[in-house]
């Protein structure tokens, strides 16, 4: 069963499943990973998640991944870190190399959902991205931490250089699309819908299957 978003955001997820390959992931990817895993019948994989809110403090990601790998490594045959660089400036890759575990290629989930090559080719400097998870959790990840609920006048200091909000949809969901449109309006940005599905996330998980 998929845990609720607020649990994935603040607490993450303890290992779920009996498989001997541990997918150690960002909580923001839980639903999508479980969908890919179930769709492919990969019962040998177990999912554990770190709190998705680490997205907002990337400097905490590497220590959290290190701790989790150390904690779980004796209980599993293999660990795959389902994070991209995610603002760690190459430090997560260096840590994974040192620990002898693989991770997802690419700078962040917006890139691997789109497909890393396609994302790079777009060269969209002035786009702000939402995924399904971030759209559902927009207030917790954007509005509140940036203080826009208390100080809406700060909006243009944060977003004044952006031009559009791109909603990268992993699933077809009309309600989420409406919400993404409202988020774009709230931020004063143009809106674009882009269905990505699971992109390179599925490719990366397949490589570990």
């Amino acid at each position, binding site marked *: 069963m998929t845990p609720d978003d607020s649990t994935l955001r603040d607490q993450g997820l303890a290992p779920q499943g009996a498989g001997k390959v541990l997918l150690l992931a960002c909580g923001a990817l839980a639903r999508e990973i479980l969908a890919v895993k179930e769709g492919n019948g990969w019962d040998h994989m177990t999912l554990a998640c770190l709190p998705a809110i680490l997205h907002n403090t990337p400097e905490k990601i590497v220590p959290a991944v290190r701790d989790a790998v150390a904690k779980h490594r004796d209980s599993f045959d293999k660990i795959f870190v389902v994070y991209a660089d995610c603002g760690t400036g*190459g430090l997560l890759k260096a840590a994974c190399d040192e620990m002898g575990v693989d991770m997802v290629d690419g700078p962040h989930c917006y890139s691997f959902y789109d497909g890393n090559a396609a994302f790079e080719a777009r060269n969209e*400097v002035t786009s702000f991205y939402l995924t399904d998870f971030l759209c559902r959790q927009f207030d917790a990840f954007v509005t509140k931490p*940036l203080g826009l609920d208390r100080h809406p006048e*700060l909006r243009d200091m944060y977003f004044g250089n952006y031009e559009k909000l791109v909603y990268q949809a992993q699933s077809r969901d009309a309600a989420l699309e409406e919400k993404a449109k409202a988020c774009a309006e709230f931020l004063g940005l143009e809106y674009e819908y882009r269905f990505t599905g699971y992109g390179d996330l599925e490719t990366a998980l397949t490589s570990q299957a």
Partner: protein
Amino acid sequence: MSDEEDDIILSELDDEELVAQMFDDLYDGLKEEIEEGVNILLERKWEPYDVLTKALVGGMTIVGNDFRDGILFVPEVLLAANAMKGGMAILKPLLIETGAPRVGKMVIGTVKGDIHDIGKNLVGMMMEGAGFEVIDLGINNSVEAYLDALAAETPDILGMSALLTTTMPYMKVVIDTMVEKGIRDDYTVLVGGAPLNEEFGKAIGADAYCRDAAVAVETAKEFMSRKHNQMAAG
């Protein structure tokens, strides 16, 4: 703020109380109050440079320290910066008129592909507060833009900022080009931005990585002082 504090009349405070109140107002991001405080101190014949350093920079230093220590967060720092900006707008022309001491000159901008300028703006403002002349190139700067500005402005320091893992390697492109052209050692190169770290700064050949605006100011001052010492010795 409490009702009691709302009733404070800035002009009735003595200098010491007023500066202390301005520290509080800056901390609370109260732009109008800061502008009023600056004007009162100027009416009391304070030198613009003293208003800047004793009231504004002093207050922003507390904000910077509390940000570093995890007591304040980005929104509060931005509000404080916005309040300081209000005070700076009053002081800037007066500082030029009165020939306030200039510590050095800096060209600063975010690198190509990066539009995130909050950190760069904070650094620029704090550098101005510390007596540096700051030439702000804005966002998304190519090698050519940086080199043109270096040639035109002949600053002491080049500051480059990036928020993205994908754009930070461009700093190396800029530094490598400076090396190729034989101008790298003519400038102190400072780099900063959330995904950077000290190792990265060293690896790309920068003089220093600056974790935040306060560190940038201290580092810049240190390099200027070394430069002056070298010139004195040479």
